[in-house]
């Protein structure tokens, strides 16, 4: 049976199309020189991250292969794709959270403002305090709201009055008005949406440059989701945000750039299918598979 399936797959797999070598410098002239139908359109202008042929292995399991991607500064970049396509794994490569999985191994280069974050001399703690992260499930610490917000600042030795740090971050996260009288209350007593904004506030208090969000709304109701989305649009004026989402409408609503990944492609796991400005991806995708996915034909 298994052989039959393999045969079948072989017969339906198309030969891998030759893709023109992409220019890695996304300045205007280079962008023009790229073939107009290239599904990978690196953004022009300043970038925060530059991924070059990034691959990720969990032991012998290949999770991501050959992803090259530029993440623009002060924009929201969405990573979309079906479950298991490696979008969360890719996100966790960007702040070295994959280091915590003993068997994980990263290939290629992940440049952050020009520096390879996987270089031997790089300390993951330095990386993580610049690149904050919000998780899928809100994970406030079982401490007071104030202690939650101040925790990151404290462990990073950021000077200042705890009250001011907390107030500033909670205002940024649009949570201040709801909790200003209950700062001593446990973070766990907040609603799910408030907890997630608390986690965003906690990340902001560390004064990061980038915020990674791993399906931040998947555990939230639509109203709480909307609040987080508004907040993302507000925060992107000051921060670079990369968001993994299952929700196509959410990607369309909040992101400026969208990367579409697929789990299985030409025998490779977790590959980048299409990347470009969100409105183009959603209105005129260049790849049939992108169109199929965003119109809900699979995934």
């Amino acid at each position, binding site marked *: 049976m298994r052989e039959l399936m393999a045969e079948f797959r072989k017969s339906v797999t198309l030969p891998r199309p030759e893709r023109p070598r992409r220019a890695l410098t996304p300045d205007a002239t280079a962008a023009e020189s790229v073939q107009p139908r290239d599904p990978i359109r690196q953004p022009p202008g300043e970038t925060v991250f530059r991924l070059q042929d990034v691959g990720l292995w969990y032991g012998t399991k290949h999770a991501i292969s050959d992803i090259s991607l530029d993440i623009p500064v002060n924009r929201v970049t969405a990573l979309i794709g079906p479950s298991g396509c490696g979008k969360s794994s890719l996100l966790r490569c960007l702040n070295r959270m994959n280091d915590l999985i*003993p*068997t994980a191994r990263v290939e290629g280069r992940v440049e952050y403002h020009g520096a390879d974050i996987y270089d031997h001399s790089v300390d993951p703690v330095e990386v993580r305090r610049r690149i904050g992260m919000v998780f899928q499930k809100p994970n406030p610490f079982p401490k007071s709201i104030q202690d939650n917000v101040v925790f*990151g600042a404290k*462990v990073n030795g950021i000077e200042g009055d705890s009250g001011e740090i907390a107030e500033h971050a909670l205002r940024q996260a649009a949570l201040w008005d709801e909790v200003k009288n209950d700062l001593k209350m446990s973070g766990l007593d907040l609603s799910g949406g408030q907890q997630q904004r608390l986690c965003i506030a*906690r990340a902001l208090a560390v004064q990061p440059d980038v915020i990674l969000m791993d399906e931040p709304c998947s555990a939230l109701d639509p109203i709480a989701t909307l609040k987080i989305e508004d907040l993302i649009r507000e925060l992107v004026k000051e921060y670079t945000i990369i968001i993994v989402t299952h929700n196509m409408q959410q990607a369309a609503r909040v992101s400026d750039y969208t990367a579409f990944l697929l789990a299985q492609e030409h025998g490779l796991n977790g590959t980048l299918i299409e990347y470009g400005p969100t409105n183009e991806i959603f209105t005129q995708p260049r790849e049939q598979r992108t169109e199929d996915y965003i119109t809900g034909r699979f995934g």
Partner: protein
Amino acid sequence: MASESIRLRASGAVARRQLVSRVSRYFFLAATVLGVSILVFLGYDTIVSGASRLSLDFLTNYPSRFAEKAGLRPAVYGTFWLMLITVFSSIPVAIGTAIWIEEFAPRNRVLTIVKINLANLAGVPSIIYGILGLTIFVRFYGMDRSLLAGGFTLALMIIPMTVITSQEAIRQVPPSLRDGALALGATRWQAVRHNVLPNAMPGIITGTILAISRAVGETAALIMIGGFTFIRFDPGPNLADFADPAGFWAGLQESFTIIPIQIYAWTIDSRREFQANASAGIIVLMTGVMALNLLAALIRERFRRN
């Protein structure tokens, strides 16, 4: 259309399965009753034979040739100091080991071997620890048959158990808390110190108290070490020694006896009247152990509510 009535009474296979289920219930009830009734009977028997000896004098008298004058005083002191030494020498090692295994150790074969060995060590008969303590502390380090040697021996004995329960407690802390802290730029130690340990503490404390309550009743290992049964002084530092480090240190090197050894000595005494002393000693020891277990339960409940 005529509706056919459905039979919903148990029949055939369902009836058989239900029968097995009902019978099994009585079997399990019988097992429980058997265990509990033996325990109740033992408790009752002990109280009946020992209650007459229970008094304040019994706790404050030294051993004696006369059963009605003999008391637990040196044994109570010995037990107290022994436990103190055991706790302070085992807990840092045990918790440290658990943290290393769960938070820092590379996941490789060496670690697997260490873990398996810990589980095995927790099951080693206590007399083996007694022999080990005799060899290492009493002979090799020349501590003689002292409180220190006894305390360290018991520490060796409860470390594997405490490590395992502490590991369990640390593993119960949701990984999302650790990840959350690390994602904020905390170092591994900061995440452990501020997020893992505070949440693992109730479990660690409970496990430690239960290990101590096992150590309190330990006899075999300490007979091996040489916990004397007939001493007429208070083992361990006196009140005056607290101001004097040298005296305190000397106190810890005194020979000792403990409650279970005293009970054992009274039990094997050929004179009938000493059996009552043994029973009274058991009541004292059981009360202590039960108080410790109650404390563990209270701590667990308290933290669970927070």
